[in-house]
């Protein structure tokens, strides 16, 4: 019986690897379609046609796309992300620090939003139909229904313009004390927490409510168990799988969220780097950033699926 689960998990992992290859391929080709010839952009308007042709040759731009893709892939396996076209620096060096910044942002957001969302989601499900439940539901629908930039705009309006508690922009390098750190991360983290939590609250609430409508919970109610015992002992352990699934899925919304949030708050993370790279048509940089985002996203949704498989008692 145990091997059934193992098989399914392995199968899911294999699918993830195939998906990764397709995604890498798609990213590579989409970026190859960027308008303008990289060589002429690099050399500026005064370049002679001979110089452009020479540079194209040196950068292997004349090779067929499939060859460039394979070369790029081989480089990736060696940890070589290529060289930025814009400033000749290795992409890995450009990304390194930025990546840490983005992971910090994502990590802090996760640490705050997961406990918050689970508490709100589970209590809302327990008190289904109450004022509290309705308030939480309406608020989370509201946050889901508006674009991320609006949540960010409202946060700036409230905390930076009206209350003047926090600065509207971030700059990680100026952090000298804990207070500085809090001030820097507060706005981006608040915005992201709202966006991520809303998803998580809705999914958690739905999962718990579904478990609460099962016969064994009704049995617990009939035998006279208290409401909290009914939820915590009988319903929650069974809702755990769907909840973890919901957490992983919601965290994948971080990928879209950081693109907007880092741009708005001028946060020196990898998404900001990528949006800037799109402006300068810096191919290797765009490819690497897009790859990191896709990889993170894929990891999270694969984790969500594997949790769903493992938590299904019929497969155990």
């Amino acid at each position: 019986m145990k091997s059934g689960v193992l098989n399914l998990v392995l199968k899911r992992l294999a699918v993830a690897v195939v998906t990764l290859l397709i995604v890498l391929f798609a990213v590579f080709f989409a970026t190859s379609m960027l308008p303008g010839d990289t060589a002429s952009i690099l050399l500026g308007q005064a370049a002679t046609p001979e110089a452009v042709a020479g540079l194209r040759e040196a950068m292997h731009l004349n090779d067929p796309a499939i060859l460039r893709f394979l070369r790029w892939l081989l480089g990736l396996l060696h940890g070589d992300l290529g060289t930025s076209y814009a400033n000749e620096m290795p992409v890995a060096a450009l990304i390194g620090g930025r990546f840490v910044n983005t992971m910090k942002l994502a990590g802090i957001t996760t640490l705050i939003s997961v406990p918050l969302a689970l508490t709100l989601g589970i209590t809302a499900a327990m008190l289904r139909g109450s004022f509290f439940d309705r308030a939480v539901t309406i608020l989370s629908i509201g946050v889901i229904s508006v674009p991320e930039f609006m949540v960010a705009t409202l946060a700036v309006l409230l905390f930076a313009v009206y209350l003047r508690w926090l600065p509207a922009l971030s700059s990680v390098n100026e952090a000298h004390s804990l207070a500085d750190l809090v001030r820097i991360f507060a706005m981006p983290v608040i915005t992201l927490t709202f966006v991520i939590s809303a998803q998580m609250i809705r999914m958690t609430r739905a999962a718990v409510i579904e478990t609460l409508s099962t016969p064994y919970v009704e049995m617990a109610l009939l035998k006279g168990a208290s409401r909290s015992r009914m939820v915590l002992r009988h319903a929650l352990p069974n809702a755990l799988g769907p909840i973890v699934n919901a957490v992983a899925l919601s965290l994948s919304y971080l990928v879209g969220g950081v693109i907007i949030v880092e741009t708005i708050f001028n946060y020196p993370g990898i998404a900001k780097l990528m949006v800037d790279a799109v402006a300068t048509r810096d191919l290797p940089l765009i490819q690497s950033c897009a790859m990191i985002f896709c990889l993170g996203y894929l990891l999270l949704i694969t984790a969500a699926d594997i949790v769903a498989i493992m938590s299904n008692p019929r497969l155990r």
Partner: protein
Amino acid sequence: MTMARAVSSRRSLLGHSYNLVGVVASLVILAWTLVAIFAPYVIPHPIGDIVDDDYFGPMRQGLWLGSDYLGRDMLSRVLMGARYTVGISLAAVSIACFSGVVLGMIAAVTGGWLDTCLSRFLDAMNSIPSKLFGLVVVAAVGSSIPVLILTLAVIYIPGAYRFARALAVNINTMDFMTVARVRGESTVYLIGSEILPNIIRPVLADFGLRFVFIVLLLSGLSFLGLGLQPPLADWGALVRENIGGLPFAAPAVIVPSLAIASLTISVNLLIDNLPQKIRDRDA
């Protein structure tokens, strides 16, 4: 969106469910639809005209929503913005749902390698974060209305496909499907006359949800400057160009945000308040 509303009002006329929230939401959606259609005939000033000496002017008589960062009439710009936001999103969601649902039904009915290949490929497409995909494609081929519509549609085809396929697979196991197959009906007949009528309601609800996703993504792209290009402006672009008014809480930056929110929240609320029978996967 419009079709989802039609379904809902028919049900409420029959007395199945009369729900205040749902009715209010339908009215808001209807209002924006009318604005989107008739905007060019009702705007008080041409959208390019500078009518105010001051920029980020407050609300006052004649300029009901104030002026924008160049002193242009905000009311006219928001009304015309509805055209682009609603129009582009509606076109994109129609393409996405039509292709997704047709492919999903075909995959469910034929099965075999076609189903496997299609599902694998579209699942892989689904593993590219939507904003990232939009960012890369729009940056690659430039931003025009047809490109935006197609990009948004392509991003949401996999979701529509997955949803429709899951529904259609259930229907496919029914006895009447076996009977139709034994009769020797064609695939076109099977998906058009046997499967579609049985999944149309949840598919319409899904259409509405996907419309919201597309409005949000379009606004997000426009906000990043990768969506509609000036002089055209949808609601996301209006927020972007007037973001400088944020420190003064200018109506020019708040009103387009509220417009987006009113539309998307209404569609979400409408779908949440649809009778269970329509919303459920196994309706």
